[in-house]
């Protein structure tokens, strides 16, 4: 018995289209989640106390339950509360909500890691709160949290595989199905692993370039 990858590559167009679905859902949900996560962390820091508690509860629930279960609830439970979504919108929403919770925690830690003196120095020269957030906190935080954000994005790349359970036509669903139909399941899974590894390495590479560009802004030591 030997592996025969041709059985899989015969269906290349389907695989490429699934590859595309995986990538765009991953990119769009992560971009949305970075902005939403930043918003959540900022609201929790500067908003009223009740909002902080509410958002904290939501973040804890999302972080405290498996992504798989959340997706099931969203896709199969959604219709019970009038939220009937097709697989792709449901997957995109699920990915975005799940990663927003994690990104918000990364940004919250980032806010806390900025020395209070940097804000005081800004207050002393007359910057308003909005100017301090825009001009000081956001740029400083960006360079502090970039490595964690890259890490999070990589984790979420692999989480896209879970979208297959709600029939989003992404890589895992499509390649897995092809593997079953062609009686080449091991080949399919092996290729899948390679695909994800390639994507993860690619994003890691891009992340390292960004970090290198930002490294000159690293925190000064006295």
């Amino acid at each position, binding site marked *: 018995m030997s592996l025969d990858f041709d059985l899989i590559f015969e269906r290349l167009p389907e695989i490429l289209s699934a590859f595309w679905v995986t990538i765009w859902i991953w990119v769009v949900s992560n971009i949305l989640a970075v902005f939403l996560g930043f918003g959540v962390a900022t609201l929790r820091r500067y908003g009223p106390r009740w909002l902080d508690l509410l958002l904290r509860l939501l973040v804890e629930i999302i972080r405290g339950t498996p992504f798989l279960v959340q997706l099931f609830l969203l896709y199969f439970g959604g219709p019970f509360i009038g939220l009937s979504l097709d697989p792709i919108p449901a997957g995109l929403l699920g990915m975005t909500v799940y990663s927003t919770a994690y990104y918000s925690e990364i940004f919250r830690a980032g806010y806390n890691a900025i020395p209070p003196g940097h804000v005081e*120095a800004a207050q002393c020269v*007359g910057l308003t709160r909005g*100017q301090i957030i825009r*001009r000081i906190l956001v740029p400083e935080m960006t360079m502090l949290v970039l490595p964690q954000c890259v890490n999070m994005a990589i984790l979420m790349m692999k989480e896209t595989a879970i979208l297959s359970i709600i029939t989003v036509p992404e890589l895992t669903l499509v390649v897995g199905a092809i593997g079953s139909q062609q009686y080449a399941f091991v080949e399919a899974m092996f290729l899948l692993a390679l695909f994800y590894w390639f994507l993860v390495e690619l994003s890691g590479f891009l992340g390292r370039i960004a970090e290198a560009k930002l490294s*000159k802004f690293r925190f000064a030591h006295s």
Partner: protein
Amino acid sequence: MTRPAVTVRDVHKSFGKTEVLKGIDLAVPSGSTTCILGPSGSGKSTLLRCIAFLEETTSGIIEIHGEPLGFADTGDGGRTRLPSSEIRKVRARIGMVFQQFNLWPHMTALGNVTEALVTVRKMKRKDANEIGEAQLARVGLSDRGHHYPAELSGGQQQRVAIARALALEPDILLFDEPTSSLDPELTGEVLNVMRELAGGGMTMIVVSHEIGFAASVGDKIVFLDEGKLLLDGPPSEIFATPRHPRLQQFMETYLDRGAATLL
């Protein structure tokens, strides 16, 4: 007599149940250098931070050139909080230099110095850069404008921080232990800049452990102990022997830590 640059009247400050300042009265004459000395925990940094409005006093009034900072006297013994626009206006006359420099790491030296000119004063980038370069030259760093803080030594960072404060042309400069996080070899360059500023007539309040600097540059020495102002006078008076026993004790422990045994 001209109005003092800073007037502190019966200022109290508590953090929770701990009273750090227990009724401070102080007048800082315009164009003078006042050095605040005192042991750790005596409240000297807290007092300075209150004058910078980084801490809000629990009671009492602080005036900058006669204008109330943060809280105004209501006349019947109470006080009222002023609107934040009013606070920013009075505060704009004060510059602050921190122990930890607190430069913004994502901006160059020039960017740090010009940030408030562009963002707060709405100056054109070109005009702001002109001022920024002039201020960097004033602290001897005209060739470091395009360096990021991480690329500068501690002494250079602190001089950039001084230039950042000077760029806004404050009437009063506050220094919170400006040399305490520097290598001993780098304190000189910062103290020299401060000496020049004092010579140029800038009103300065300096919290520092540099007793030598205080004795030679200070027009006025203030000694705080346990939240109270124990001594207030010109250095010739304060350091003259016989000294106040508490000051004598402070200076002895200070020398113990240093090179006294080598002398």
